[in-house]
């Protein structure tokens, strides 16, 4: 199913993500990489201070939708699959891959590219490529 091309809201949303990353860097000196933030609150936690830091930031993420719903119209969303097995596999791969490769769309994609990190550029090209390939296979070969 097609989705509407939304350059303006996507650009504005992206700018907010960038603003948040700059706030986090200016205030706490940390990279706004979600997989890293989550990964560091999981055992074994190496730095104790990462735990309250991560929990409060994630609490902010969890408040975003309720706050949005107070002020704006409901958001259009559509799950890719209602098959819980497939969602479980996807979650496992996302969690494993982002933690093993030290970053996801935010840490490597937004912050890493903005810092001009070679590792992040390579990581971003890699996950974009495997993402394209996966969707291509799912939709064209498996017909999902």
């Amino acid at each position, binding site marked *: 199913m097609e*989705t509407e*091309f*939304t*350059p303006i809201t*996507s650009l*504005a*949303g*992206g*700018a*907010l*993500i960038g*603003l948040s990353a700059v706030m*986090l*860097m*200016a*205030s*706490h*000196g940390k990279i706004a990489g979600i997989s890293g933030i989550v990964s560091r609150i999981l055992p074994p936690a190496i730095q104790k201070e990462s735990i*309250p830091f991560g929990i*409060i*930031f*994630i*609490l*902010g*993420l969890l408040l975003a*939708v*309720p706050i*949005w719903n107070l002020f704006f119209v409901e*958001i259009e*969303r559509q799950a*890719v699959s*209602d098959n*819980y097995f497939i*969602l*479980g596999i*996807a*979650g*496992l*791969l*996302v*969690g494993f*891959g*982002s933690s*093993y490769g*030290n970053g*996801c*769309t935010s840490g490597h994609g937004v*912050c890493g590219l903005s810092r001009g990190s070679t*590792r992040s550029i*390579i990581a*971003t090209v890699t996950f974009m*490529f495997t*993402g*394209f*390939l*996966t*969707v*291509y296979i799912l*939709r*064209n070969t498996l017909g999902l």
Partner: protein
Amino acid sequence: MKYITLLFSGIIFGIGLVLSGMTNPLKVQNFLDLFGLWDPSLAFVMGGAIFVALPGFWLVQKQKKPFFSKEFDLPKRKDLDFRLIFGAGVFGIGWGIGGLCPGPALTSLTFFDFGIYIFVISMIMGMLIAKKI
């Protein structure tokens, strides 16, 4: 103040994800469907974020230290290794299958549908496995 700034950073990040369309898995998957129902919107998300973060980071790092901590905590590694490439590759496969990456997945928990809980619990299990090996 330290924690208020942190909480607000989280809220702004989450609202950015919602506004940009990143919390809509179908939109993400269509972005990845380059030769099919391609929706280029998510390139604008990344563009908007980098447009703000690139000059923002540059300005911030001219300061001696962050407001609330002693020093900037930045990745220093420059080498490419198996973990980076393999991890990013696996992450991209999961991203393509589910249309969700970690930030949007967590933000979507407060949409309260069952599938997202399955996704996030599996994601945490995946992270625990990655930390073990």
